């Protein structure tokens, strides 16, 4: 398999074993530059581990993760480098810097030189303020900029984290269970943010909730025991007998 212009990320044949337990088993996966993709699968299917591998947190035992036009192998690169290459990640539990304001959180994420010296002498310019305000409006936190992010509600923290992702201006966004613990209204807002983001970049969303996935209206990959069980439209995969057996028909 060779990657071509329409592939942004190509994961091929990765496997990883934790204490003898194969969490990812010969998994292959591909996504294009402006594509929205949902990954579903039962608990323990390896969805989070898959993201860990792409973002450099976990080293796979074998396989390749090729990135971008140049098909650079991401394996062996550290997390920060991969993030700078254009992969942003949202964690399953909301992780924002709770001791800092919404503004500080967003400003830290806005794409700018990450070198310590440059950061030391960095003072936000008009365009940085504008960017932060634009993002805050997008995630519905315009009135909260001066609040400590630890004080936000669970849903607001999730949005702030998505906002921080967008601020990095990544080419690929990996979003782990964004709707967990959200109210119905919050979920709808979240779908809108993600669909909007996917117009200009690739977005991979891991989600349990079928209704949420249906609203995303995108291609779905079903993961099971560390490998791909089925792939296609939501209707297509939900009719697949294997999928029904392991996931839907529980």
């Amino acid at each position, binding site marked *: 398999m060779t990657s071509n212009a329409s592939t942004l990320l190509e994961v091929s044949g990765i496997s990883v074993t934790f204490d003898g337990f194969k969490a990812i088993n010969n998994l292959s996966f591909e996504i294009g530059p402006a594509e929205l993709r949902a990954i579903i699968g039962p608990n323990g299917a390896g969805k989070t581990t898959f993201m860990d591998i792409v973002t450099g947190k976990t080293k796979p035992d074998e396989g390749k993760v090729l990135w971008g036009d140049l098909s650079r192998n991401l394996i062996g690169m550290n997390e*920060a480098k991969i*993030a700078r290459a254009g992969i942003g990640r949202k964690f399953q539990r909301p992780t924002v810097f709770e001791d800092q304001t919404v503004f500080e959180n967003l400003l830290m994420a806005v794409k700018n030189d*990450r070198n310590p010296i440059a*950061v030391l002498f960095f003072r936000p310019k008009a365009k940085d303020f504008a960017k932060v305000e634009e993002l805050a409006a997008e995630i519905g936190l315009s009135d909260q900029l001066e609040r400590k992010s630890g004080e936000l509600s669970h849903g607001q923290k999730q949005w702030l984290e998505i906002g921080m992702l967008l601020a990095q201006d990544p080419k690929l966004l990996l979003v782990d269970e964004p709707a967990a613990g959200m109210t119905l209204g919050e979920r709808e807002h979240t779908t809108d943010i993600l669909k909007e983001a996917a117009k200009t970049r690739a977005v991979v969303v891991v989600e349990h909730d079928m209704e949420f996935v249906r609203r995303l209206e995108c291609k779905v990959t079903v993961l099971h025991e560390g490998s791909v069980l089925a792939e296609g439209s939501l209707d297509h995969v939900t009719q697949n007998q294997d999928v029904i057996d392991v996931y839907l028909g529980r």
Partner: protein
Amino acid sequence: MDFIRKNPSLPVFIAGLAIFTLVVTFMSEAYGAGALSTSFVKTLGKTLCLALVAIAMDLVWGYTGILSLGHFAFFGLGGYMIGMWLMYARTKLIVVESMASAALPPTPSEISDAIGTQIFGVVGSSEFPLVWMFAHSFWAQIALVVIVPGILALVFGWLAFRSRVTGVYLSILTQAMTLALSLYLFQNDSGLRGNNGLSGLQNLPGADGISQDYISIWFFWASAFALLITYLIAAFVVSGKFGSVIRGIRDDEARVRFLGYSVEGFKLFVFAMTAVMAAIGGALYYPQAGIINPAEIAPIASIYLAVWVAIGGRGRIYGAVIGAAFVSLVSTYFTGGQAPDIPLGFYTIKWVDWWLVLLGLSFVLVTLFAPKGIGGLFDLITHRMSPKRGGAPLGPDDGSLREQEAEK
């Protein structure tokens, strides 16, 4: 202006330090009423240097979450570097003077041998070790004050951070570093006079006619100035985006990585920068102390440093200053024999022996019941409150801010 808005304590600190400096000056033997003895002026000057190194500790621990228990090693190294020049230059003046009366003018090598004998006689040697090769040059040794601790911190930090050693393991590693350095310096063939250390540092070369009354107040001024600059630098470092990033590293370093910041690079930067700050503090401290020996670098010294910052209140720069000043002055009072013994009838509490117990107890109590330390008292005035998080710290990492330390 924005800078002051973000550091409201800054004008207060500057004013306080200025007033303190003036008061001490006008109460000194040299420039005032003489109400403060020269030795007490030296104690105060040294205290300012300790406050300076406490700021460095607060940056590395309170703001970045790296509990370094080795920063006093950098402080001591700074003292050694300046001490080498002080000892060399003064010994040379004495030697040249005493040889001037000889029939034949002494050759440079005779002078050098005589200085060597003077300095290294105590360790049974007269040869100049390699590490003294720049000791004749004031500017070279001044540069080494920064370079030697800076490079040690860079190498140590690079090795430790690159392997992602964090938390208590990193603390142990820093203790090992300072222990190793101190044991090395204890050896006579380390070239720095073993356990004798460097002495006579209070005597500035060529200043024999000037009394210590004046020299002590000059060093006091220099220490106050260095403390001020350090405070300003620290305030600058923590107030902008750099401050955001290091506080992020303290609370949740994995998250900072996924934002694309090189956590190791930032830690290394802070570690080396604070090592240099500590070294400058040491270079000003030891000429006032008059002597430096390897015991100064003992692991316990670096632990005290952490205790000062904890008692003052970590994560706020003035907290470090207050903690260091308060604890070291109280310690001078108790260990200097000024504190009256307390007779209990069956036992007499001698503070010289019991001070450490009291300090240890205070540390435990502060950690358990007043995590904000003395700095927390200011929150009563400013009405600063902690968030209500049900006891949860603000991040998953070891060094992360505790609920009580945080600001709502």
